[in-house]
């Protein structure tokens, strides 16, 4: 290795480290903030006596804020939204990838439009509707409204996965005597498993992070962590340490999920499949 190569290696490392510091600093700041006792919150120097009191308070439901319930709500609502979207979206993606039917492109575009239309444009009418339908502040209502977030994502991404599968695989199964349904479940679905894993994670993160829908469409029963964590800022004195602790706790599920299905994420679409 020449000195020139070695130097450029060092420079690249230095640049990466610099970037890590820049990218991770806010998270480090959050961690520090969450460990600070309430009376040292606003000190600007780094010496303080670290305490887990913040976490204890948040997870212990003290201060009158049912954070654990928010957390469970988030889990239920996000997982529910992803599950429903997979249930509806996988057949939809498959159909739109395999067949061109009347209005199929319009339908797909409509789905896509849910993603690029700002949530704020529909939130007021939704609020009124939800009030009248009795969906306000319910799991069902939240799972339903989150379809706006998760369904287009799942349908559009899975559509391209299905389109990349050669239809001959399913046709061969049909000729073997499998039904259309069996060809879908036994041939097509297993081959797009990595895609399902990746898109589910993505949809889960989007659903988990959603703020506007739970902010307007829930009040207490079905409220999620994104809105719930804000409650610590209310009252006479903002408790930043509790907010930070709550935020860090609510990062855990998406992080865990990402780590568990990582192996599917890296494995792309290359099955070494059909033509070489």
């Amino acid at each position, binding site marked *: 290795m020449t000195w020139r190569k070695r130097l450029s290696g060092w420079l690249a490392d230095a640049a990466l480290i610099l970037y890590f510091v820049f990218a991770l600093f806010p998270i480090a700041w959050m961690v520090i903030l969450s460990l600070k006792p309430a009376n040292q919150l606003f000190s600007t120097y780094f010496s303080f006596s670290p305490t887990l009191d913040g976490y204890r308070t948040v997870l212990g439901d003290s201060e009158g804020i049912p954070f654990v319930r928010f957390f469970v709500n988030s889990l239920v609502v996000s997982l529910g939204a992803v599950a429903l979207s997979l249930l509806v979206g996988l057949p939809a993606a498959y159909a739109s990838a395999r067949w061109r039917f009347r209005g199929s492109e319009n339908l797909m575009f409509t789905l896509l439009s849910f993603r690029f239309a700002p949530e704020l444009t529909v939130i007021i009418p939704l609020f009124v509707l939800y009030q009248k339908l009795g969906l306000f502040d319910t799991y069902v209502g939240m799972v339903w409204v989150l379809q706006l977030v998760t369904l287009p994502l799942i349908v559009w991404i899975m559509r391209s996965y299905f389109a990349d599968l050669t239809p001959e695989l399913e*046709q061969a199964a049909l*000729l073997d005597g499998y*039904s259309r349904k069996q060809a879908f479940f036994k041939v097509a679905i297993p081959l797009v498993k990595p895609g399902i894993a990746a898109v589910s994670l993505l949809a889960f993160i989007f659903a988990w992070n959603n703020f506007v829908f739970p902010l307007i469409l829930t009040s207490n029963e079905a409220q999620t962590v994104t809105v719930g964590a804000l409650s610590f800022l209310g009252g006479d004195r903002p408790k930043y340490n509790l907010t930070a602790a709550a935020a860090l706790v609510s990062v855990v599920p998406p992080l865990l999920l990402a780590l568990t299905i990582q192996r599917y994420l890296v494995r792309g679409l290359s099955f070494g499949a059909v033509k070489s």
Partner: protein
Amino acid sequence: MTELELRDLRKTYRARGRPAVDAVRGIDLALRSGELLGLLGPSGCGKSTTLRMIAGLETVTGGDILVGGASVIERPAQQRNIGVAFENYALYPPLTVAENLAFGLRARKRAHRGDVDRKVKEIAERVDLTGILDARPAGLSSGQKQRVSLARALVREPDVLLLDEPLSHLDAAQRDTTRRELKRIQRDLGHTTILVTHDQEEALSLADRIAVMKDGVIQQLGTPYEIYDSPANVFVADFVGEPAINLLPGAATDDGHARLSASVRIALPVPVAAGRQVVVGIRPEDLSLTGEDGLPARVVAHEPLLESGIATLALDGVERPLVVLTDPEVRLAHDDRVHITADPHLTHVFDAETGDSLR
């Protein structure tokens, strides 16, 4: 085994806002039990559509398909018992070769495990897959994939076997061996088979009879020799034969010749009314270089291919070049003067307007 019959089979594709496309326009074919028929034609001629209709993967616009005397067009693909070896093999990537073969067997009957294993083993021996039963498709060569694909089509004992361009993705050496094996396997097992291909070599070497197709219509049906020796029209003559036949337009004279230019006349195999516009077809291999008699010609190019040569000649006043297959010892240079003769018995003559053979 089973006969296959197509009666006036038609397929029209209709899409909103676009003119209807007639992909297949009334095909009649009858295959004897155990026959291998080659469906030969350029891409877009409707041969693959025909195959997909027989398999049940495409709806039928008109006509009928009979397998063993019974119409199958009302039945979905699952209930037709037709085996297809797809052009791209369509092997199931996560499964091993053995599992791929067994996959098809498990669908239909409640076959128990021992039975499935026995059948897989049997077909693997037939098709020479015994050594690679535990391999996955990704690790196989194209030739092996093709054999697995064939085995998968055969393992559940179909009434009719359809082969879609079985050799097109193989390299030259694999193509030769696979072709020989294909022929042996088909003859051994005796399946009524349709082979769809755009490659004349594939059709000529494998098929008992060939149907040459163009624009959704069968142009000619016959044995390879019939197709080659007496092509029904200009298209068939042009499509079958390598290098391609020489097709030279001219006018019939009153003494049994065709006048190609002021000084060039070629004897016709059959009498044709004087003055009729014709196309004379002579295969490059039916022309020979001669000493002094015959038609004078000038050499434009000569490609020595070792076991033979291909000479491109210009005839006096004739626009189209004439291609001649030469003997290996012949050496020619640009602008050499040569003489050629054509055997009138091997000469073809077609009507210039309709393209139909006048022989």
